[in-house]
């Protein structure tokens, strides 16, 4: 038998002025199961709470209904009060008779009548409330960072700093990412390598950090605090533990005409290679697409010259399984493919390059040793045209709809560096808008214009035509001068839009995290939870979440680390008990619920059932992980059999409310 207590709050005159609280208490006192019904001036005050607590103890209540302000205001207050009096906090229901009754109605009779109905609905619901206990689930004290660019490195360093083990998975043979390819950074113009490589070394030397380079995540199972991740270590045909990174093999390898991707294909590397001098880990990797030994079985030079015997042509891909409490995604970005923009002649003319290619052309460790030369004839360019917004800010059919954010600043940087080093070179920048929000950013851009005399022209380039004399005709409109220009340039640099790495989408599927239509990971809340994904325990770091420059990336990386640390320091996490649960006897295992769950909280197990005829049947049934479920209830409606129900908002509870209201 239910023993329910009803407590009607006056809220001073807030409620009592338009609702006859005594009448409400009186009416609700006659509801079935209600054995005590009281009203009080301020129910949320200490004495009000004591009234509730005493009634719970005195009448041994099995449920409490408080008719007061919005549950968003004081539900927790009364739940805590109930708990302290020994009643399960989830046996408390609130009827909102202030915001949704007394404050919006003027007529006392009808407001009182409505308040009674709302109270009856709450009483009807509380009849069906079940005591709920928040579950706990342990936290594995280890984090995984996917991607070893500056974002991943920073996140890993910060997590390691807090004393937790952290693994970095990087698909390239070395960590470092895009920043390793960059020459100088804006707006300070310090050397990217000089600030990045110490961090790479720090990461490799940190006792808490394990770097899995040349590896990929191939499977993710589990949930917040307890992920099981399978990492595929691709065969590099070199024993990492033996290789000293001396580089002798790379010098002796006869297959030395492989386009060097680190230098954007402007020079060559050998089939066995170390991407760049400061690579971490500094270990050679054999490229199976080019190695003669692997392809034809004839060669073996590297194995002969290696003094430590690190070369192993028989090496195979290896799968490692590891448990993690938190996962940070830092998969970064790539410039888009420019094939569909014929008008810029990128595929026709070697002297039309992307900005990232220009970084390598200007880099001291690049193909020309830091001297800027035209790729076609290795001559010094005297006129360079920069084109902004190539593929950014486009209609969906023409490119990326978003602003790539970093192009305005790096173009100003390039223009400035070129003017500084080669004052005889004319530099033109065609822009639509110059966007420089950031500390010292606009000053930087103004310096390019005022101090370095870079010609900024408002207008988009319409057509780039390579001419037979080696010059490049750039046709554009100068919108402010209202004229069409032709510039005979020596080089054209395209600020290509950036997009998330191609590995991001399959990864998002494995992680059950959400992505937007551009394949950027979606944050749990755009304002308040910008570094967390909607899936608990998965955090976002760097450009995988949206275009970012280096300082923003590092800031977000540290923020993601802080969030991950906040999770890892806990021994266990308390779960919201208002979660979905499936009645195994009714579940069909049809997978509808799994499809609508935004958190990947539902899995299926094959379970044995004893049938009435004493046989045993194995049936596929859904099982909800209460640590992952957030309690939205999408699955409860997707479930055709009604096996899926939600604690705290069960089908029968809501129907009881409907019935009470519609009586």
């Amino acid at each position, binding site marked *: 038998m239910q023993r329910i207590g009803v407590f009607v709050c006056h809220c001073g005159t807030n409620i009592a002025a338009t609702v006859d609280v005594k009448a409400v208490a009186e009416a609700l006192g006659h509801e079935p199961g209600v054995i005590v019904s009281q009203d009080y001036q301020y129910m949320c005050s200490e004495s009000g709470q004591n009234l509730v607590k005493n009634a719970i103890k005195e009448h041994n209540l099995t449920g409490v209904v408080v008719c007061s302000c919005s549950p968003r205001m004081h539900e927790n207050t009364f739940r805590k009060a109930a708990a302290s009096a020994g009643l399960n906090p989830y046996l408390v229901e609130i009827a909102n008779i202030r915001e949704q009754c007394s404050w919006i109605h003027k007529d006392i009779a009808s407001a009182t009548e409505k308040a009674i109905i709302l109270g009856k609905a709450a009483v009807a619901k509380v009849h069906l409330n079940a005591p709920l206990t928040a579950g706990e689930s342990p936290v594995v004290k280890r984090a995984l960072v996917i991607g070893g660019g500056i974002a991943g490195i920073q996140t890993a360093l910060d997590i390691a700093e807090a004393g937790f083990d952290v693994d970095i998975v990087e698909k390239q043979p070395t960590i470092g990412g895009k920043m390793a390819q960059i020459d100088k950074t804006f707006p300070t113009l310090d050397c990217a390598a000089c600030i990045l490589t110490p961090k790479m070394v720090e990461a490799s030397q940190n006792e808490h950090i394990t770097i899995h380079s040349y590896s990929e995540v191939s499977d993710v199972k589990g949930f917040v605090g307890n992920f099981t991740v399978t990492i595929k270590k691709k065969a590099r045909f070199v024993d990492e533990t033996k290789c000293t990174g001396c580089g002798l093999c790379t010098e002796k390898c006869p297959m030395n005409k492989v386009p060097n991707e680190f230098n954007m294909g402007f020079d060559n590397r050998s089939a066995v290679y170390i991407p760049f001098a400061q690579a971490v880990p500094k270990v050679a990797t054999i490229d199976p697409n080019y190695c003669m030994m692997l392809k034809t079985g004839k060669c073996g030079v590297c194995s002969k010259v290696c003094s430590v015997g690190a070369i192993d042509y028989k090496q195979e891909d290896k799968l490692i399984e590891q448990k993690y409490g938190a996962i940070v995604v830092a998969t970064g970005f790539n410039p888009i493919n420019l094939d569909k923009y014929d008008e810029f002649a990128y595929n026709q003319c070697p002297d039309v390059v992307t900005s990232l290619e220009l970084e390598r052309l200007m880099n001291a460790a690049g193909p020309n040793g830091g001297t800027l030369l035209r790729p076609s004839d290795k001559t010094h360019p005297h006129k360079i045209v920069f084109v902004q917004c190539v593929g950014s800010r486009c*209609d969906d059919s023409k490119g990326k709809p978003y602003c790539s954010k970093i192009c305005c600043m790096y173009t100003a940087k390039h223009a400035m560096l070129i003017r500084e080093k080669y004052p005889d070179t004319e530099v033109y920048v065609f822009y639509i808008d110059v966007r420089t929000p950031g500390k010292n950013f606009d000053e930087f851009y103004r310096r390019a214009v005022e101090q370095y005399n870079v010609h900024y022209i408002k207008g988009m380039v319409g057509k780039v035509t390579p001419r037979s004399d080696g010059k490049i005709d750039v046709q554009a409109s100068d919108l402010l001068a209202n004229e069409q220009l032709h510039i005979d340039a020596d080089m054209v640099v395209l600020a290509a839009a950036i997009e998330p790495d191609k590995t991001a989408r399959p990864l998002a599927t494995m992680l059950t995290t959400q992505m937007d239509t551009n394949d950027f990971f979606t944050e749990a809340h755009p304002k308040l939870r910008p570094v967390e994904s909607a899936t608990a325990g998965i955090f976002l770091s760097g450009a995988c979440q949206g275009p970012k420059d280096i300082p923003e990336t590092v800031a977000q990386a540290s923020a993601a680390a802080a969030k991950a640390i906040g999770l890892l320091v806990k021994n266990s996490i308390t779960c919201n008990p208002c979660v979905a649960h499936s009645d195994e006897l009714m579940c069909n295992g049809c997978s509808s619920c799994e499809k609508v769950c935004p958190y990947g909280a539902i899995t299926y197990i094959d379970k044995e059932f004893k049938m009435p005829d004493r046989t045993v049947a194995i049936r596929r049934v859904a099982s909800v992980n209460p640590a992952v479920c957030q309690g939205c209830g999408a699955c409860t409606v997707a479930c055709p059999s009604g096996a899926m129900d939600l604690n705290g908002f069960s089908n029968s509870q809501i129907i009881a409310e409907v019935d009470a209201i519609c009586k």
Partner: protein
Amino acid sequence: MNKNLKEQVLRSCGVNVLKCMRCGKCSGTCPSYDEMEYHPHQFVYMVERGDIETLMNSKSIYKCLTCFACVDRCPRNVEPAKVVEAVRLAAIRQQGNNHMNPNQIPEMLDEDMPQQAIVTAFRKYIK
């Protein structure tokens, strides 16, 4: 500003001029640029402002080659050539009573007249 005219032009070209981000790529790409008093990006902007009579009175509307380079290259699919065509059409429609009246058709019909000629006459007759 002539609101009806603007509406007519927008309806006949089917272009959403508000999509324009003023990059000027259309004008940067236009082969007739130097022949035109008003350039493709100005067409889009002036139609948006409703300043259509100026365009109609300009020779620019006859200088567009309808090569569609601007349509092809516009990053935001605004399709400026269609706007130019629509203004040109608006100008042609207003050139006196140069439309054939449907009532005039029967007396002009003869066996040999191709169907297409009749349809075309609605647009360009007399001119």
